[in-house]
């Protein structure tokens, strides 16, 4: 399924990233498996963000918007009881023990996400989350150049798209506020990301 997405949709620049939206603005969180992007997006959905995807950011070549592909949020290991406590209203499927990825469970995307699955969002924040208990947590501004490199690393088809991919990624990064985001506590992290959206609204 994942392969089908990133191997056949080259009119999008595809990043391995979770995407949530509030007030028409998308928060894109590219990260490797295990860095907490699914868990974070579940927490943000609980706090009223719309889920676009916990796996793929589909950035359109035509309009630069991020297109939704809402599917169940995959949670692993300790994230499962954590989200069950944090967001009890989200429907969670059965846990599968001992898979190749450990214990896995899936959250149903909220009805609102599914109903609005044709509605893209303007990218506003590019945040690289990393669950890490050893460093000070919080949003740390990241240069556009570093963000560009990191985002290109997380792309499935940046190389395939060639020059067009470079232009698309540059335009995308330019549109976003860019941050590194080490975090060690789910609630604090979700609050920090919430504030991003609020700041923007206050500023507007």
């Amino acid at each position, binding site marked *: 399924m994942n392969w089908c997405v990133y191997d*056949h*949709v*080259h*009119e999008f620049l595809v990043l391995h990233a979770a995407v949530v939206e509030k007030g028409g603005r998308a928060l894109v969180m590219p990260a490797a498996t295990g860095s907490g992007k699914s868990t974070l997006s579940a927490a943000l959905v609980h706090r009223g963000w719309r889920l676009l995807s916990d796996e793929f950011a589909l950035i359109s070549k035509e309009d630069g918007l991020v297109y939704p592909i809402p599917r169940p949020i995959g949670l692993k290991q300790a994230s499962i009881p954590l989200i069950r406590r944090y967001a009890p209203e989200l429907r969670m499927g059965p846990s599968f023990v001992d898979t190749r990825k450990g214990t896995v469970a899936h959250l149903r995307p909220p009805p609102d996400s599914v109903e609005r699955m044709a509605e893209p969002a303007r990218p506003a924040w590019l945040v690289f989350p990393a669950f890490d208990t050893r460093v000070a947590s919080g949003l740390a501004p990241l240069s556009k150049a570093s963000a560009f490199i990191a985002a290109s690393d997380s792309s499935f088809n940046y*190389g*395939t*798209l060639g020059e067009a991919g470079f232009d698309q990624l540059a335009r995308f990064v330019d549109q976003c506020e860019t941050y590194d985001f080490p975090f060690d506590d789910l609630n604090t992290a979700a609050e920090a990301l919430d504030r991003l959206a609020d700041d923007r609204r206050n500023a507007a």
Partner: protein
Amino acid sequence: MSATPTIGPTPLLRVLRAPAEAQDFSQGEWEDLVWHARKTRLGGRTWRMLEAAGFADRVPEPVRRQLASAFIEAESHRRRLLWEVDRLHRALDADGQCFVALKGAAYAAAQLEVAQGRPAADIDIMVPRESIAKVEALLLGEGWKHILEEEYDQRYYRRWMHEIPPLVHALRGSELDLHHTILPLSSRLHPDAQSLYRRAVTVDRLGTKVFAPADMVLHAAVHLFHDGEIRGALRDLVDIDVLLREFGARPGFWPALVPRAKELGLVRPLFYALRYAGHLLETPVPSAVVAEAEAGRPAATILAVMDWAVTRAIVPALSPREKFGARLAGILLYLRSHYLRMSVAPLSRHLMRKSIRRLWPRPSRMRDAEP
């Protein structure tokens, strides 16, 4: 048995013949086209043709997405081939070793139309047989390594084939076939490799050489009808079609084609190439050339069997009835290709060896021999 294919042209074939056909496609025909394009990996080529003909905006959005993506993918392959050619110059030029780029790499380096929208996995090059050892050593020193580790595979390739066992680049993952001629040594045809080199032309600033147009077409024909598998190989026939359409517009190409095929002893594969490209893709070939190529016409029975088998096997089958025919045709053509590649004694030894290995697999000897 009739000479024309009995299966009606699929929407994909119709577009490959004349892109304007797509103007009146129903949704069902578009769906059929997408299925065939994916199955044959001709989506990129189809998109290229629709765009060039100015029909891109007539393509329904979901179909456009599929075809345009396939084209983008193929473009990335083309860039990769060009990069690998560049790296090969770096590995070989200093030592004075020349190579001729073949197939996809040649099409890309020569900036031919056929390279547009054409996916390509491997890079193929040819060097004189006496340089093989030296070139292989240089490549092994530049990060290329052998894929096949079994000593038997290594011996088999070197004794019977027209190439050494395939190489893979340790960092870039690209695969390279290093040839010293265009057909297996064991094959029934023996085109003169020297003559192919003499006529090769330089096509870029790096000094990359490719076969002259006629030789390029003959190589494609040999590859499809004398060496490779015909089953599902519509792509290879399309290569021939697009090459012929492009070269055919150049003065002097058509009159020289059949004489050159005769010189190299390749009139039979050329006959097949012109025949099936004409039947399936309506490739325009001057009637004088068709008449000249009659010199390569096989006996009536063989031709009847080939007509029946090729038209069924080369296009992917949809319905159960087609599938059955395609399967049978595929088996026939498979046996034929083995027969053409090798005389019976070494072939049976080889197949015996491979079956034994499949029944009793054992660890690689070469790996064991390593410290």
